[in-house]
């Protein structure tokens, strides 16, 4: 037998779903209420999550369990406390140091990774023999890949005025960019419709039991 709380949860969820959908008709108190409940719940959820999933297992438990063995953890703990100094205007300047360390380490870690994955490997992937592919379709695809990459990059080359002959690759680049924007729009529509399908499936299935 379905428990009372499961049924109650489904009805509550259905009510909030309909309240949010009601915005499509016009702004109304039910929508506003649902929106504010969502914001409040999200904030509370993240606070609890940070305490129980991050702070306790990674800091407090380790320090309580073996303080002398985890002395190094006092450094991030101190940096965290320094970050909280932002709350008071008089001590706000202290938070600049942990922010500086965060930016520095993040930039250092990301720089090499992005350089390798997003620049070197991506450029290498276009340095191919287009005619080495097994099928005609793949050869055409490879040629389009090379032309699209070169013309797309050329479109963003601003050091020389793009006119006459030099405007041709730029125009081809625009075509490639437009096609990619169209594809992105298509995928966006697909994602939004999927969300709608998910909610309607919940309303018609879990709530109203109309879907077999």
């Amino acid at each position, binding site marked *: 037998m379905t428990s009372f709380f499961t049924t109650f949860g489904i009805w509550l969820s259905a009510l909030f779903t309909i309240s949010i959908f009601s915005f*499509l008709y016009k702004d109304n108190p039910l929508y506003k209420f649902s929106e504010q409940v969502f914001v409040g719940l999200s904030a509370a959820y993240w606070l609890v999550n940070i305490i129980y999933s*991050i702070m306790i297992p*990674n800091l407090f438990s380790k320090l309580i369990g073996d303080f002398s063995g985890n002395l190094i953890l006092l450094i991030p703990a101190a940096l965290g406390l320094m970050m909280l100094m932002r709350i008071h205007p008089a001590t706000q300047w202290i938070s600049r140091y942990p922010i500086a360390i965060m930016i520095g380490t993040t930039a250092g*870690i990301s720089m090499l990774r992005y350089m390798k994955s997003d620049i070197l490997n*991506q450029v290498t*992937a276009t340095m191919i023999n287009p005619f080495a592919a097994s099928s005609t379709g793949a050869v055409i695809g490879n040629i389009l890949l090379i032309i699209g990459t070169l013309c797309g990059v050329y479109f963003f080359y601003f050091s020389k005025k793009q006119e006459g002959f030099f405007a041709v690759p730029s125009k081809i680049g625009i075509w490639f960019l437009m096609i990619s924007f169209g594809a992105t729009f298509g995928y966006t529509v697909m*994602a939004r419709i999927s*969300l709608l399908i998910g909610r309607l499936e919940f309303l*018609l299935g879990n709530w109203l039991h109309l879907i077999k």
Partner: protein
Amino acid sequence: MKISSSTERKIIYSVLFIAVALPLLFPIGWKTDVSGYTRMAYDLIEESPDESVVLISFDYDPSTMTEIQPMAEAQIEHAFKRNQRVIATALWPMGVQMAEQAFSSVIKNYPDKQYGIDYVNLGYKVGGMVTIQAMGRNLSEVYPADQGGTPYAELPMLKGINRLKDLAWISSLSSGTPGLKEWVMVAGDSYGVPVTGGCTAISAPGFFPYVNEQRQLYGLLGGLKAASEYEGLIDRIGPATMKMDAQSIAHLLILIFIAIGNVKAYVSRRRVAQ
């Protein structure tokens, strides 16, 4: 008769609601062709050796589960079919629950699969890229115990699995950051482990360039359509397949709306010009 733009909008919403709801109530059963990206992801799992240990990272939360949960279930089922053993991890806190739901849904058809021997849920870890980097060096240091508190060393399927390099493949099912991109950058590009994955349709165009000659990404499942394609490849009538009729009808309707909107704009521009 002149219809205001606000009324037009309400008509569009209503028609769209009906168009999506009807195929959910009365399925049509349209077939979906398999794309090269989905086939590539399928081939990676299909061609990996039996008994190998693999990792699926649940980097999403309930807001995108309509699109991504069917991928998770399909990949777990495919791995089970191939007798591969699955490690679940999460870079998103709610990914843990998503993994539990996916396993409990698939395990109904595989009652012989046992926790700790055929699959394990290591849970959530904060840190994104840095965490993956640490997993590349030593998995048990990052995950000293599984989600239920069982120590890493006591989980039979993890014997001999010390770092990412010991895995046959990794799949990141991702709806944002940290997610698939971090796995590609660290696990794929730095440690050389084959990485595949799935994402929401909206982020798929951003990941397609990684499916290239350099094999940064072995195929990609982008959105509900790819999930249904994958279900088709493993002969599974799953949640994605059942939703594709609604998706197709809605797309058709949007195409019609775009055509009507363009004709209307053209006519009104001509009227103004005259």
